[in-house]
């Protein structure tokens, strides 16, 4: 297994990205790998569990999240304005064969955790050495 097993599609950048005449934000992500799979943690503050979409298609794991009040936030009279509110979108390319049916997402306190189990053939196995 190399450290290149998981590659992000979009650059991690605080600046919003413009697609389809809409602004999307790339959520900050932690990616961990263990023997049995990958764990991704993404910062998606303000997103409710019902407003998250996770899809896996042909080696690409995509995450989208909608924030409820992005339009209202634009008209405010700000004294301190350090972030903008808008939908999140990010994709990850996974080169390791995974068990697509076993992918699970869990959103709590604005933190999305995704567990991606490896396919049986991709799991690390101990090889028995026989003595002739």
């Amino acid at each position, binding site marked *: *297994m190399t*450290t290149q*097993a*998981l590659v*992000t599609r979009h650059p*991690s950048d*605080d600046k919003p990205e413009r697609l389809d005449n809409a602004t999307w934000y790339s959520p*900050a*992500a*932690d*990616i*961990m*790998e*263990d*023997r049995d799979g*990958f*764990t991704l*943690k993404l*910062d*998606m*503050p*303000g*997103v*409710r569990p019902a407003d998250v979409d996770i899809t896996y298609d042909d080696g690409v794991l995509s995450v989208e999240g909608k924030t409820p009040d992005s339009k209202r*936030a634009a008209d*405010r*009279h*700000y*004294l*301190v*304005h*350090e*972030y903008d509110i808008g939908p999140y979108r990010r994709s990850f390319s996974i080169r390791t064969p995974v068990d697509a049916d076993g992918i699970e997402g869990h959103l709590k*306190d*604005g*933190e999305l955790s995704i567990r991606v189990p490896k396919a049986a053939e991709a799991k690390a196995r101990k090889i028995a050495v026989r003595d002739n």
Partner: protein
Amino acid sequence: MLDLLYPVRMPLYDLHDQVSRLFEDFYREASPWMGEELNRFPAINIWEDGETSHLEVELPGVKMDDVEILVSGNQLKLVVQRREPENGKHTWHRRERLVGRFTRVLTLPWELNPDKVQARLKDGVLTADLSKADSAKPRKIKLLTD
């Protein structure tokens, strides 16, 4: 042959030096800015709505017990602890989310009423209504006639 090659190689070395210097300059110039960005965690918005102002802070993955808000005069101090993800045997591929203890101090243009600050933490967003202190509210001035 060597003599012929030499003048050709020199500009290439120069170019290499120039490119290295360009990168060094970039990182030197970018580092204070990157530091400032780090100090901006967690990100804060404050907006005004008549006599009340509203605070909004992005705190994904932070528990209520790990947030402290202190109000004194016109200063608002926010202390936040974001904990490490659970320890286990794993390899890191990417680590973008900051962890640790963060303090932000903001100075507002008016005094706040600490008794009327109410804060909520929902879906990783902290919201609070910040009421102005009575001394900071506008008052009608009586006009005296001679």
